[in-house]
């Protein structure tokens, strides 16, 4: 297992360390965009930077899987003592660690900004770490969906099939809404009742746990699909 961790570190250390840079995106957005958008407040700029940082980090997290969709590599790793399950475990742990590093970097930068803002007697000081934590869990959920597609169908085909699935899901949702247009008000009212202030904290916290549980489930699904996918890799 140490060997696999070492291999991943040697191969992907730039991507892993780039999470720290992505975490500074709210601060960079503030510094770089201040001149271009003088009328915009600090907080909207920082939130823009936060979202940009998350998008960039998401793309970089998928790049650490690059090159794994090769048939020979799959056969070789399956024959090692750790097996393909050990290899996938290290991959999942690494992607999770990247998300954690991103969150840590974001929170550090956020607190540093607030400390500097307090010293410079700025009146607009708002922490955006809370939103960052939520986005972190959304990112965990997205990776839980992305990784099985990647290993089952390979990089290119996987992205294409995932896109088809997402579009099909959106069409299904729209069709569901259109077919129930008469009951739409009832559905919205039911949704409002469920998401009352009293319930919302419970639903939100349960959602966070579900995201983490889905990430583990995603690992188990990838383990089941990996060998089938390896048979179909292009090279």
């Amino acid at each position: 297992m140490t060997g696999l961790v070492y291999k991943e570190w040697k191969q992907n250390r730039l991507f892993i360390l780039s999470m720290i840079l992505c975490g500074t995106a709210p601060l960079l957005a503030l510094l770089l965009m201040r001149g271009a958008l003088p009328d915009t407040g600090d907080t909207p700029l920082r939130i823009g930077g936060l979202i940009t940082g998350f998008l960039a980090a998401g793309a970089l997290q998928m790049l650490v899987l690059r090159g794994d969709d090769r048939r020979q590599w799959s056969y070789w790793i399956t024959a090692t003592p750790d097996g393909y399950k050990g290899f996938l475990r290290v991959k999942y742990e690494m992607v999770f660690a990247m998300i954690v590093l991103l969150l840590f970097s974001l929170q550090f930068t956020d607190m540093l900004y607030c400390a500097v803002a307090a010293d410079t007697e700025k009146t607009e000081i708002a922490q955006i770490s809370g939103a960052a934590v939520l986005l972190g869990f959304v990112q965990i959920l997205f990776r839980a969906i992305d990784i099985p597609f990647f290993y089952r169908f390979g990089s290119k085909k996987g992205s294409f099939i995932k896109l088809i699935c997402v579009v099909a899901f959106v069409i299904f949702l729209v069709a569901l809404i259109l077919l129930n247009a008469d009951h739409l008000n009832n559905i919205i009212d039911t949704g409002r009742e469920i998401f009352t202030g009293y319930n919302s904290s419970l639903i939100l916290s349960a959602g966070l746990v579900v995201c983490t549980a889905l990430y583990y489930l995603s690992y188990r699904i990838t383990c089941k699909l990996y060998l089938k996918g390896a048979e179909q890799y292009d090279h």
Partner: protein
Amino acid sequence: MTTKKENAKRLGIYLLIVFLFISLPFIFRSLINESNTAYFIIYYLFSFSPAIASLITRAVTGEGYRDMKLHLNLRGNFRWYLLAFGLPLICFTAAFILPVVFSGHTEWLGGFTFRNVLSCIFTLAALSAVQSIGLLGEELGWRGYMNQKMEPLFGTAGTCLLGGIVWSLWHLPMDMAVYNDGEGALPDLLMMCGGRMVMLTCFGTFLLWLTKKTDSIFPAVIGHYMFNESQRTLADLLWQGNIPENAASDAVAGVSDFLPMIIIAAVFIALLLRDSKKAAEPSFIRNRP
């Protein structure tokens, strides 16, 4: 094989570096009081000082970076991760709730509704997975280095005791900050430091056991996170209840604060001593059916 003399030298260097870091908040006291940025940077440097000290010591003594216990080792150890999550929560729940129940003020527990409690547990579970990483700065030093060097020198019980004392002394600048701001009296400060020393020495026993059981510092990181956060969460829930402002403080604090932690320490020191005894036995006795 590392000799006792080498271990003592490494431990000495490590502790020297850690205590140099402890002096930082005292040296830069006026700067910290004047600037939020300086406070933030020094605080972060200080909170990562055990890990930084362990890395510096490893570099200086040339022992390398092996056995830092940085593997997750989740396989077969998931139940110990769950224990790291659950035990501090149970322990502090007992410490917070029992005094209120025994003092006959169950109406103060109005915040402890099923929904609130479940929501808190879910939040703690999710956040312990992604937010506990900051505590790596402490655990990489205390459990990942110091305890390993202490155990051959002072034995298991000695490591728990001395490790706990060092760990609590490291928190001294935080306690002193309150005193230096003029917010607390000296007897209060001494009570706080003493209380922290008892709590951390007891809890350190559990963290040492976890680290040895799983050969990883991550369960200790989660346990440490839960130690900090479960107190905060339970205090929040308690203050959501109808506690009158003139409520007797002895009803919500006292000896029972320490009792669950002392029980944990007794149980885990017994387990640690049993494991040490087993490890010392020749393998043909250990493997006897």
